[in-house]
């Protein structure tokens, strides 16, 4: 009861604040333009200035927003839920579901404005657009010059939501549901929003030239490191085994993620053009090669090609290509896809067991490691013929590689520290883990009073 109360009060406060904010007249139409480094605007040089809404670009971004939403629900939910144990699948689904819902609200209330509006010392946006104050149906943001700002808000919302949901995979089968709800709120606020601002919202990492087309750093490293730190603090499960309760649902979820990722990466061109197409096909080939490389590695290393391996490799390929999708050419994507099926495989099959942390669904091994590999290789393969905003080592710019490494390092340190603190706070308020008996009986019964299959 105390828990519910705490949570409710928190949410209420946020909502009151936001309604208050909305009352203020939107007297600042001319928002200081954030100097985004996303490739998109640079990539459509034919449309220089007029800031006119293009229906084709808008259509693609509307669709991309829906696609990325679909990645969370039901995509990621099924991918994670299917791998969970039979007695914990609902709780696993519930973590993604609740995270998507919570972030959807908070993004509109204060996330967007602090991530994308204005720039205070390179560290965070300002609060002018709390509750989307001042954004009308014809507003256009400098970050995306041919689509309504409201569409850009929505598109970015889905990125924030899935990032939080991704983290959950590492905590399942032991974390209290109330602790997860609190985590979603706090981690979104103190980890996602700042990092998104740093890379895409005009903050320090973007300013220093770090390339991140669709979220290698903002989404995957961010989530992967939080997953690692969190699962270490949480501690091991009583039964730290991976026994997928429903592999067909895992494959379904993986297919949905792949599908949605076309919006994730393709939509990050912020326009319906050749760059979007390039990001799209790079995404497809990297996922395909990630799946095949993982499958063959497994076939050699552990004798059989598993379906879980195919699915895991595809996701790893998608993760690795994310920061690079709109920067590299097809050869770059090919190499990155193959590595995506090999490096995360060993992170998961060997490294994890050596280091003995219990990352239930390998969020760190796939998203953390994959995100780091992707971010660094973007600095190697970025081809200015694809996108003039990015020029990597292979095209004569070794500095880009350095920049990438520094940006990755800063993100890792920040996220690790923030996640650690957040876990301490949650532990103090509602506690982190369910009772051992509840854990053995399964979280579906203890946390939700339901059973998955009847």
């Amino acid at each position: 009861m105390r828990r519910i109360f705490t949570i409710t009060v928190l949410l209420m406060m946020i909502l009151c604040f936001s309604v208050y904010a909305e009352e203020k007249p939107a007297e600042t139409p001319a928002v200081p333009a954030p100097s985004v480094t996303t490739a998109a605007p640079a990539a459509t040089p034919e449309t220089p200035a007029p800031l006119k809404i293009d229906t084709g670009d808008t259509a693609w971004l509307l669709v991309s927003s829906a696609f990325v939403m679909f990645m969370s629900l039901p995509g990621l939910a099924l991918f994670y839920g299917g791998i969970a144990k039979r007695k914990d699948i609902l709780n696993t689904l519930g973590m993604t579901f609740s995270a998507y819902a919570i972030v959807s609200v908070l993004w509109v209330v204060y996330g967007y404005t602090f991530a994308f509006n204005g720039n205070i010392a390179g560290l965070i946006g300002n609060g002018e657009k709390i509750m989307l104050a001042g954004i009308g149906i014809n507003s256009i943001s400098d970050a995306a010059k041919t689509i309504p700002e409201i569409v850009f808000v929505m598109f970015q919302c889905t990125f924030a939501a899935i990032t939080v949901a991704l983290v959950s995979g590492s905590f399942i089968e032991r974390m209290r549901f109330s602790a997860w709800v609190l985590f979603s709120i706090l981690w979104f606020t103190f980890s996602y929003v700042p990092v998104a601002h740093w890379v895409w919202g005009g903050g320090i990492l973007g300013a220093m030239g770090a390339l991140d087309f669709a979220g290698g750093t903002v989404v995957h490293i961010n989530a992967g490191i939080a997953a690692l730190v969190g699962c270490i603090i949480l501690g091991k499960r009583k039964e730290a085994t991976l026994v997928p309760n429903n592999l067909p649902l895992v494959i379904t979820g993986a297919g949905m993620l792949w599908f949605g990722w076309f919006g994730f990466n393709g939509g990050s061109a912020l326009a319906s053009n050749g760059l979007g197409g390039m990001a799209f096909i790079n995404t497809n080939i990297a996922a395909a090669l990630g799946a095949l490389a993982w499958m063959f590695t497994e076939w050699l290393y552990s004798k059989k090609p598993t379906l879980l391996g195919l699915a895991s490799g595809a996701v790893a390929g998608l993760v690795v290509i994310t920061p690079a999708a709109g920067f590299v050419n097809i050869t770059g994507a090919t190499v990155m896809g193959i590595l995506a099926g090999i490096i995360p495989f060993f992170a998961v099959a060997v490294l994890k067991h050596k280091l003995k942390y219990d990352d239930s669904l390998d969020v760190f091994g796939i998203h953390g490691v994959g995100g780091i590999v992707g971010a660094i290789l973007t600095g190697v393969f970025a081809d200015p013929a694809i996108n003039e905003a990015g020029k990597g080592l292979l095209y004569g710019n070794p500095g880009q590689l350095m920049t990438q490494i520094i940006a990755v390092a800063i993100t890792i340190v920040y996220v690790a520290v923030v996640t650690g603190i957040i876990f301490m706070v949650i532990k103090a308020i509602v506690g982190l883990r369910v009772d051992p008996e509840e854990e053995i009986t399964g979280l579906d019964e203890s946390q939700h009073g339901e059973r998955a299959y009847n």
Partner: protein
Amino acid sequence: MKKIEAIIKPFKLDEVKDALNDMGIKGMTVTEVKGFGRQKGHVELYRGAEYDIAFLPKVKLEIALSDSLVEKVVSTIQSKANTGKIGDGKIFVYPIEEVIRIRTGEKGEAAI
């Protein structure tokens, strides 16, 4: 009366059932079970980690019948369920004290 309980390999079920049917056995009850025995289970590999699956899927057949039929039924099951490979299963014979047919209330051999 006796109860015969046979633990057999699942894919032999139809063959055994048909053979028993042919020899006039009018009823039986079947349960999906998991067996543990000399036959080793298999290993499943998820993300590079091995999991021993000790228990193997088997099917349990239960047949109540009059004493006179026991021998014939046992030998039918034994010959039909036999593959010669380890894990073919067992047949157990138990005493039954009473049988009642729910529909009619008949008792004893009439109820089978």
